[in-house]
């Protein structure tokens, strides 16, 4: 196919997609995220509670250097808990013990962390999600 032909084919695909979307809005109206949220609830994924956003920023500073491991006892890896448990809120109920231990280690981690990670907020994030998953 010539370059003109490829260009016309791409434009036709885009135009058809646009037409379909306009048609769907005209027929069904704007549906918003209702169905999407319902699907998430069925999966027990949950949505970040509104108040949680206020301290999410403080939990996203980790650069993965691992130096906070020295705050824990031999065998404890707080650096791995920090990066793992805040990325899987659906598993918050399973991570509660780690979150509570992180809260205990938070002052020592703040002293060590080059980025000033506030690990107690990671714990609160997990506890908030756990409460939501329990329906509280």
């Amino acid at each position: 196919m010539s370059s003109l032909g490829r260009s016309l084919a791409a434009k036709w695909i885009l135009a058809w997609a646009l037409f379909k979307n306009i048609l769907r809005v005209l027929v069904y109206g704007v549906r918003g995220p209702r169905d999407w949220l319902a699907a998430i609830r069925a999966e027990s994924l949950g949505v970040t509670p509104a108040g949680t956003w206020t301290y999410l920023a403080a939990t996203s500073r980790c650069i993965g250097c691992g130096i906070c491991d020295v705050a824990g006892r031999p065998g404890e890896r707080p650096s791995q808990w920090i990066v793992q448990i805040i990325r899987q809120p659906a598993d918050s109920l399973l991570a509660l013990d780690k979150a509570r231990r992180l809260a205990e280690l938070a002052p020592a981690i703040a002293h060590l962390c080059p980025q000033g990670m506030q690990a107690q907020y990671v714990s609160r994030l997990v506890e908030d999600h756990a409460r939501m998953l329990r329906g509280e």
Partner: protein
Amino acid sequence: MVDVLVIGGGLAGVMAALSAQSQGAKVVLASRSYGATALSTGALDIAFNPALSPALQQARTLAEHVMDLIAHRPHHPYDRMGLTTSLTALRRGYEQLLQVLQPAGLAPPPLDLEGENLGLPASTGTVIPAGAALLPHLGIDFNRPLAGRWGVLEFLGETFHDANRLARGLAADAQTLSGSPAELIPVRVALGERMGPMGLAALFDSPEYIDRLASALRGKMDGLAGLLVPPVLGLNDSAGARRRLTELTGLPIVETLAHMPSVPGLRLQRALDAAVKAKGIERCGEIAAFRAAGTELAAVTTAGGRSMAAGAYVLASGRFVSGGVVWDERGCREALFDLPVVSALGAVEAESPLSVVRETPVESHPLLTAGVAVDAQLRPLREGRVAFANLFAAGMILGGFASRYALCADGVAMATGYQAGSAAVATLGGAPCLA
């Protein structure tokens, strides 16, 4: 009233604090938390630039590498200070560091600027050039033919250290660098624990654990000339751990340089903290705000609200990792005093991220050279003028050079830290300054 207030508790900040105090100043050291020093590898990078030294085998002294950097890197701190001042400050800063490292048993031999870079084994399986290193990492120089067969220790079950990969990588690099084959063989032990570098290092502080390791090694060391171990040889008493393992095995023990998380970096940071404490230097927390009076810095305020006035200030807050340089909605800038940031390629502006492609592949990304511009006295500049007459900068907050690819971060921290501390004292009223 404080004479000199140093902002930053890493290598450069502590060098500046010790330098100022040794010249009679009353010093306060402000730091938020550990910075990039606590993540360093254990090597002490003085000067080496692969982009300027394409033939790695070519013998060049450390002083010649400093001259290379001055000749080819117009923004480099060595160039800012000039050759004579750089070499003098390097020697004096290094002597200061030796005193810091002595109590922990980490002090390497004195600096020989007429000597060459060493070829040290890194835990990534490559040979890294370094001007010096903390004592546990010395004992092998892969720039020279390796005498005898060395074992490479691996703890079975640990994923952070692969002896086989390490042995093959180091042997290949050694062949290239020295022209002779190096014989390295994996030595594996299973002690049951699986806990990562920090946890293992904590175990090495216990003599009982070293005894268990020596027992596990029995029968596996026949014919070995030495043992290369992962960088986990003790957190609080690495000198004792190394001594005990040497006695029990009868072999020289060398630790590889670390990647993150770095036990050697933590040891270095703790030695610096101990030196600050031993010298009676007061510490305060993070500095959150400042007040200027005319052309001078009048006072700073800690995050806890304490206001502190000093005659002179040293900024040694590091770059992105340590929080000294940030890129936020206001662009790329120095975090505390809002100083403009420059890179090796020029000014860094909010709307113009610098190119990621450099002329030679061994050059670093321009943003890795981002920091403040300074004059010959190490005073930060704003729009071509000295920002504050009594503010000096040291270490990685200085812009225009790359730490990783110029392999000079520790040398810059020692030299500029020493020099900034001296210059700060000189502004107080006539004390002699090197420059």
